[in-house]
């Protein structure tokens, strides 16, 4: 029988390839990724404000890492789970290694900040002053500012035996104060006040530079005694707590997913504390109290040489007037097939259209949905929505379509991390507009990105499909690299209907012509694609695998790739983030090469390419090679068959493999080093190359002229979010 039984599918655990020493721990590998982001902040080839932004990204990434990954390890410990992971580390051991690696990362981060970036900022006229550097006039100004603006908003809280330790909210900045109660240390009163998040962190001052700032927490610290009048303050310091933010929902009991998520959102604020950050030189006594009260694990108190929470640099980045210290602006282009305002449905009927974002604009997709909403021939629109910006024109168009009597079905993934609050709001509004809204599937996260438009045309029903590697988010589409396919291929159209039927519960076991769906078939399909290469290599035929993805964690796939390597399959991988596979191990993975690209745009698109005896099979996908993508999410793998589109995707992949500017090569220990141009080799940065290529190839400027391409996406969390 051709089918594999499950035992075989899951791999034989005794096979040598799955030994712990052949794998890297995913958390540590993630920290290496964040190190690469930090390296971009250190990279002098990048404009200053971009470097600062990379620092902010690294910082907010780390926040989420503590909330989600460290949080989850803590959950495991609390649940008494001590089984080691694939690399042989127990949850506790992993937490120790994480603390170790993070402290180096944080030290690097702040060394870079104070030794390189602060001087560089001053050279460019941007001054961020410490309290000691303020002149008299500035102090006078701040004193007034404090009294009239800040003071009314502050809520100081004191702790004594009669009052419980106050709730310190996740990721807020606070100032802890020790008040002398006239007795011994033990009798000192601990008090705390939150730095209000309603004000910007950067308080602007008149000064010598182009712009001069002081940090809000420093302003409050300066005048902290005004909050505790008549008390002697022994010490004051800023601190910040990061809490466990993993969303744990008991779905068996969750009759109504929507209610459950609303409930859990409220709980999130109160998750267990995972990390405490204080400035170096803060009172040890104060730090000690915090560590004890917040029940923090050893090694999870970080003393930093500089401002806490560097995400305030996003604020700086967003200020007007620093354009020369940023990347040159780039406007996404409209692809040739859609130029001159050509009817999109007609264009798709002519041929498949491939969109490479952000080099090419996401606008056509928004246009298509808006057009569909008004097109009398359109009968139905179905779409999966995962992480959509609340102000999204797509949401508006869908509501409008429903209003015009179209059948609109929307699958809203509520479990999209940290966006739930946002999602629930607009999902309800879509429902009100008459859309049929499905709030995710129990036990599965819907991660595929697909739109189906059903249109009644002269020759009958036709289906138009858009499938992409990226979310339907017009904002992130400007900064994430993704690939989308527009097609009216009958088979893919039918498949799209089947996918939506599966998502709406009308299909027990979806059978698809072209698309491959997780969790039902994807793992099996990847396995068989890899196995075919193995067979071909063993038969002495040409065999290779080339792939670009965001994370490679799945141990079953890694094991298969090792087997493929051993069989002689040449494997080239571009893995942006975590990679638990160790390339170049003798006898194990000698034929595997891994590179990572961190650049101006967030690498997001997944491309998989298999040699198939020279008759290449090329796919794009929403799925990474991670357990969660294979087993716990609804994902799609899409074959690119149109010859033109296929050669384009192949071209994109090849360019990534030629990058010698932003690419970093991974060694067998999980460390990365820049790939440098060989002698005589031209410098090639894939992202720059694609921008130039798009500018040369395409023609019409997007309708809206975007002034600054690089605006952060509604909130730092959202942007950094998919890094983890």
């Amino acid at each position, binding site marked *: *029988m*051709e*089918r594999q*039984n*499950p035992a075989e599918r899951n791999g034989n655990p005794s096979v040598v390839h799955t030994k712990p020493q052949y794998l890297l721990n995913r958390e540590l590998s993630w920290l290496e990724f964040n190190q690469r982001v930090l390296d971009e902040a250190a990279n002098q080839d990048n404009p200053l404000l971009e470097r600062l932004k990379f620092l902010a990204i690294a910082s907010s990434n780390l926040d989420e890492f503590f909330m989600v990954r460290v949080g989850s390890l803590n959950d495991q410990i609390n649940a008494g789970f001590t089984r080691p992971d694939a690399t042989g580390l127990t949850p506790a051991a992993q937490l120790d290694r994480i603390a170790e690696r993070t402290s180096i990362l944080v030290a690097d981060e702040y060394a870079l900040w104070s030794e390189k970036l602060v001087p560089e900022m001053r050279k460019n006229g941007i001054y961020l002053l410490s309290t000691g550097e303020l002149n008299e006039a500035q102090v006078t100004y701040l004193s007034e500012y404090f009294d009239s603006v800040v003071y009314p908003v502050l809520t100081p809280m004191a702790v004594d035996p009669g009052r419980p330790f106050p709730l310190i909210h996740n990721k807020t900045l606070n100032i802890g104060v020790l008040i002398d109660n006239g007795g011994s240390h033990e009798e000192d009163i601990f008090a705390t006040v939150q730095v209000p998040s309603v004000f910007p962190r950067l308080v602007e001052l008149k000064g010598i530079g182009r712009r001069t700032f002081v940090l809000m927490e420093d302003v409050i610290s300066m005048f902290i005694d005004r909050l505790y009048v008549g008390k002697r303050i022994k010490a004051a310091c800023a601190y910040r707590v990061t809490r466990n933010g993993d969303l744990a929902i008991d779905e068996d009991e969750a009759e109504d997913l929507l209610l459950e998520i609303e409930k859990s959102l409220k709980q999130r604020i109160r998750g267990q504390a995972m990390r405490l950050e204080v400035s170096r030189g803060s009172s040890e006594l104060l730090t000690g109290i915090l560590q004890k009260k917040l029940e923090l694990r050893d090694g999870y108190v970080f003393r930093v040489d500089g401002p806490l929470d560097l995400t305030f640099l996003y604020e700086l980045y967003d200020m007007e007037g620093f354009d020369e210290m940023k990347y040159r602006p780039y406007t996404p282009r409209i692809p040739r097939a859609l130029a001159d305002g050509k009817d999109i449905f007609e264009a798709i009927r002519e041929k498949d259209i491939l969109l490479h974002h952000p080099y090419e604009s996401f606008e056509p997709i928004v246009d298509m949905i808006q057009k569909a909403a008004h097109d009398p021939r359109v*009968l*139905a629109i*179905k779409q999966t929505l995962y992480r959509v910006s609340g102000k999204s024109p797509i949401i508006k168009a869908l509501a409008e379509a429903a209003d015009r009597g179209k*059948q609109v*079905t929307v699958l809203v993934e509520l479990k999209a991390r940290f966006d739930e609050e946002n999602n629930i709001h607009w999902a309800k509004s879509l429902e009100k507009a008459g859309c*049929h809204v499905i709030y995710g599937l129990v036990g599965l996260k819907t991660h595929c990105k697909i739109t189906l438009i*059903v249109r*009644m045309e*002269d*020759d*009958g*029903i036709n289906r138009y499909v858009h499938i992409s590697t990226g979310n339907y988010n017009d904002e992130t589409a400007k900064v994430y690299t993704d690939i989308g396919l527009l097609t009216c291929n009958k088979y893919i159209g*039918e498949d799209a*209907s089947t996918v939506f*039927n599966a998502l*709406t*519960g*009308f*299909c*027990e*076991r979806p059978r698809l012509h072209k698309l491959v769906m997780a969790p*039902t078939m994807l793992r099996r399909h990847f396995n068989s694609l890899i196995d075919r290469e193995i067979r071909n290599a063993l038969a002495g035929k040409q065999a290779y695998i080339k792939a670009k993805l965001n994370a490679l964690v799945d141990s079953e796939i890694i094991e298969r790739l090792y087997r493929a390597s051993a069989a002689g399959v040449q494997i080239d991988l571009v893995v942006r983030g975590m990679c638990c596979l160790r390339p170049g191990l003798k006898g194990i993975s000698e034929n595997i090469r891994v590179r990572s690209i961190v650049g101006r745009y967030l690498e997001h698109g997944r491309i998989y390419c298999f040699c198939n005896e020279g008759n290449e099979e090329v796919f794009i996908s929403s799925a990474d090679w991670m357990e969660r993508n294979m087993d716990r999410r609804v994902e799609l793998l899409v074959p690119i068959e149109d010859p033109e589109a296929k050669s384009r995707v192949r071209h994109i992949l090849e360019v990534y493999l030629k990058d010698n500017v932003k690419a970093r090569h991974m060694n067998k220990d999980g460390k990365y080093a820049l790939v440098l141009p060989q002698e005589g080799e031209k410098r090639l940065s894939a992202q720059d190359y694609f921008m130039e290529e798009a500018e040369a190839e395409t023609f019409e400027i997007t309708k809206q002229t975007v002034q600054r391409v690089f605006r952060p996406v509604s909130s730092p969390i959202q942007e950094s979010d998919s890094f983890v």
Partner: protein
Amino acid sequence: MYCPPRLFAAIDIGSYRLKMKIVEVTPEGRIRDLETVDHLILLGRDTFNDGKLSFESVKKTCEAIQGFKRLMADYGVTEWRVVATSALREAANRDFMIDRIKFQTGFDVEIINNSQEKFLTYKAIKWQLMNNGIIDISEPTLILNIGAGSIQLLLMENNLLASSQSLKLGALRIKESIAKIEKHTLNFSRVLEEYIEAHIESVEYLKSSNELKHFVLASGELDYLAELARLGVDKGVVSLDKEQFERIYVQALGKTPRALSEEYDIPLADAELFVPSLILIKKFLDKTCSDKLIIPSVSLVDGLILERYNDELEKGISMDFDADILSCVREMATRYRTNEKHVRYVERVALQIFDRLTGIHGLGERERFILQIAAILHDIGKYIASDPHYVYSYNIIRASQIIGLSDEELTMAACIARYHSSETPELGSTGLVKLGTEERIKAMKLIAIIRMADAMDTSHKQKLSISAMDVSGDQFIVRVESWEEAVLENWTFNMKSEFFSEVFGLKPQMVIRNRMVGEK
């Protein structure tokens, strides 16, 4: 002129799953599938165990149908047909369910009987086999249609259906009937086998196993059987080698449903019916000399679609399915050793009269067809005894489940046979009371016709041939020619004409032109 394609949705409320198919029919008469969706709801489990549907099942069914309705709206479907089979048919609370569906979705659910259900599926099977040419169905072919509630055994010969037999031995029904003893045995599959053997003992195959060249398996709502054959898929129709089947059979018998569900990637509920189905297949496959199983991937909904559009399909694609029913009916008449010449005569004359009275009787094609069936079968009761053979005919027809006929139609045919002879019916007579008022009137008209036709061959010698039939005033004049004396016929004709006049308000008169006399 532009003529938009028509969209049709066929919904089957099965005993085991709800299924819907949406198709588009182009003006040129081509059918294109748009959607096939299903919902696993084991209505049969409720009905076969408790005799009625549970609250939960009714709720789930209504929700699913509302979902179907939404999907229909996605395509702007304007025509549909919703049918329900055994689980709903046999449920005590079926009318409430039908009412709720009507209230919530506006759909009228039509309950069809086993013969109709299996005939619809048969249509789709035949259509596929004919258009696909994978086997030569002019050769004797055994078709096993396994449903959740019952199975149907069909024999095909010369591209037509030769016989059909139905057994209440559907996979779900078997499973539910003897599930209770599962825990008392370690070899449950053996018990299943014995149970099945006992129930199929009475099956008549009509052909010896070396004459039955092909074996076709239709799984209807039990899609997993197609799954089993997915191993060797080929457009629409799949074939599985007998050897391969036997390997699967032997392996599966020893496995738990859970293991099967994983192995074949099918829902657990499907896997539970796997073994009973395999045993059924094996038993019947062994009655043929076929070395493979042909498995067309069609089900009831395909039959509904075909029934709706058969007449409008491209030439060469559409088919005459009534011929299959007639072929079955004729086979039945032969089995009961009726006088073929007499039957042919009555059939022909009855139809001639029927056609002549078009516009007077106000009946349609379907009634003509029932008349034809009844004519073929009117004398089968003679197999038991000649007096009162018409009562036996009636009973045999009623018990026979003629494929493709609804319960009402079957009763009508039985009544026509019941009153073709000496007894004159009244509205309250046996059999007729089982019909609705409208059907009863129709039956009376057909009875009036067959009585005249039968009278014209009282001697079973086919003496009279019709040369013309005229309606003039309140006279219905049948002009016939004969080479012999036809005193008996004339006498019977006149005797039976009273009822005819009552029904049609026309007085029948037979004018005989004796050719013997004429030539003199």
